[in-house]
């Protein structure tokens, strides 16, 4: 199901770039759009191969979303992408009205999401995107855990009709899933079995959850790890099964603690089976410049933080 010893590191944005080229070869309708940062988002990979199907809109994210909506009306399969700070940050109104309310087949992709953007600082460390988008009807939201899963996600969103959002990061991170690790939109993946508690994670935090679970195993705590790659629609069944079978839930995401994966999981639990729960994420504050590893440590979004949370939540379970 996964391999933590794989030495390969690749950014999820690179997974997006390479998948888009492969998709473009198969599907002539694919059009890539960039807003002045196509080199950073890896949309330029597509430009190199299919310059005639690449559209540069300049530093104008609002217009990019509108143009993408128009391209969908012309029967194209548009993939607008830029930094998460600006997509959805800069163009939420366009996403809401022109894409989601209009229910058009636009495939939104962000890069540079999360605190691992690092040295660029808080302006570019988008930690609110899932919260903004999760409240918006008609939108499917995917947060891939590594570059390989990102590739699968790109192909999967192309197969479905309707608005989608894929969240990618800047930093090279371990590729730990395998070619045959299943990926289906809306269906989470149990990467590791366990009975004492369940960690439900997305994005880079899936990797840290697996590391944490291995450490905990040695201490005699058996932890289930679920890769909740689709935030919306959330896999309720897997959450409730984990709650009833393990009795404690920890969520982990590289995103604000409010409004993201943790909130989505909490909503399901509270209405059905409230079990002890703890959320790992950015604690309602902005980030700062630093190395990704330093920032993850300082803001408590790594294996160490997850281990501590598991221990705390399992204690509450026995009360």
């Amino acid at each position, binding site marked *: 199901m996964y391999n933590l010893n794989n030495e390969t590191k690749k950014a999820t944005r690179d997974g997006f770039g390479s998948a888009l080229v492969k998709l473009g070869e198969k599907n002539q309708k694919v*059009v890539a759009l960039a807003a002045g940062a196509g080199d950073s988002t890896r949309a330029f990979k597509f430009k190199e191969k299919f310059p*005639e*199907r690449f*559209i540069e*809109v*300049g530093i*104008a994210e*609002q*217009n990019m*979303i*509108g*143009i*993408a*909506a*128009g*391209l*969908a*009306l*012309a*029967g*194209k399969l*548009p993939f607008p992408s830029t930094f998460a700070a600006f997509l959805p940050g800069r163009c939420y*109104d*366009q996403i*809401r*009205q*022109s894409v989601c*309310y*209009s*229910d*058009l087949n636009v495939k939104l992709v962000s890069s540079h999401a999360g605190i691992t953007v690092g040295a660029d600082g808080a302006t570019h460390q988008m930690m609110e995107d899932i919260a903004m988008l999760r409240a918006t009807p008609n939108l499917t939201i995917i947060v891939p855990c590594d570059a390989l899963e990102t590739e699968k996600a790109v192909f999967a969103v192309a197969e479905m009709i309707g608005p989608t959002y894929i969240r990618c990061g800047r930093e090279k991170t371990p590729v730990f899933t395998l070619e045959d690790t299943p990926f289906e939109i809306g269906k989470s993946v149990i990467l590791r079995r366990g009975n004492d508690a369940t960690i439900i994670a997305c994005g880079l935090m899936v990797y840290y959850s697996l590391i944490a679970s291995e450490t905990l195993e040695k201490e005699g705590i058996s932890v289930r790890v679920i890769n909740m790659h689709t935030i919306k629609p959330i896999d309720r069944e897997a959450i409730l099964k984990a709650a009833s079978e393990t009795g404690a839930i920890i969520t982990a995401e590289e995103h604000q603690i409010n409004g993201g994966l943790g909130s989505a999981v909490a909503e399901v639990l509270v209405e059905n089976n409230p079990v002890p729960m703890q959320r790992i994420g950015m604690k309602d504050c902005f980030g700062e410049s630093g190395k990704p590893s330093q920032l993850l440590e300082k803001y408590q979004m790594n294996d160490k933080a997850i281990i501590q949370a598991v221990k705390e939540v399992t204690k509450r379970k026995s009360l």
Partner: protein
Amino acid sequence: MAEIEDLEVKSKSIRLNILKMLNKAGSGHTGGSLGMADVFTALYFGDILKRNNENIQESDRFILSNGHICPVWYSALAEAGYIPKEELLSIRKLGSRLQGHPANHNLPIVEISTGSLGQGVCAAVGLALGYKLDKKDHKVFVCLGDGEMEEGSVWEALMAAAHHKLNNLIAFVDRNMLQQGGKTEEMMSLNSLKEKIKAFNWTAIEADGHNFKEILEAFEKAKNNKERPSFIIFNTHMGQGVSFILDDFKWHGVAPDDEQLEKALKEIQGS
């Protein structure tokens, strides 16, 4: 070319519809809708917009970027047979396909939902660009309000259309010099609009938005423009056709009550 007299009859009918439907709704955007009745009449009955209902991808397209004047659009669509006329009175009511601002989910002729300003024009650029990618020459028409042009995204769209040389794109603005809250030139002046449009590398065309000959000529000129995107400034009067609504910004978002309706209908029928 369409007979001017026929167009005059049609636009009168469209104005009557607008007043009746908004009176029934008890709210809505009367002033701008009345002001654009002649332009919409020309668009749908002057042989301008060539709609292919069998194959939408082989058709001219239209987007209403200033979605709030949808009463004039719905009314023109009803006159053109796209919507049953009796359905017009359902506007703004629960369950109606005729939402307060155009929504595309139940009414296919509305292709994209608009209302939040400065967005439809961006989609029109994308649609025109999509046609260009497929080497199709169908036209994409988009209507904007002059107040809407205060939105920065409009200018992003204008830049992009010129950059991509979208000679299949025809934008037209309802230049009534008024917006919610007052005069455009007092709230945020657009004064040299024509020069601005030219500076953005569009072909700027100006016409009296209540003179059918001028309206049709402006549209034809735009359709024959092979060089660059065309932008038509239609000089209009908010509330055209009804004396007590004319040029009064307070009628931006207000519907006529029963007494006002009666008076307005008489004025239009008697004109």
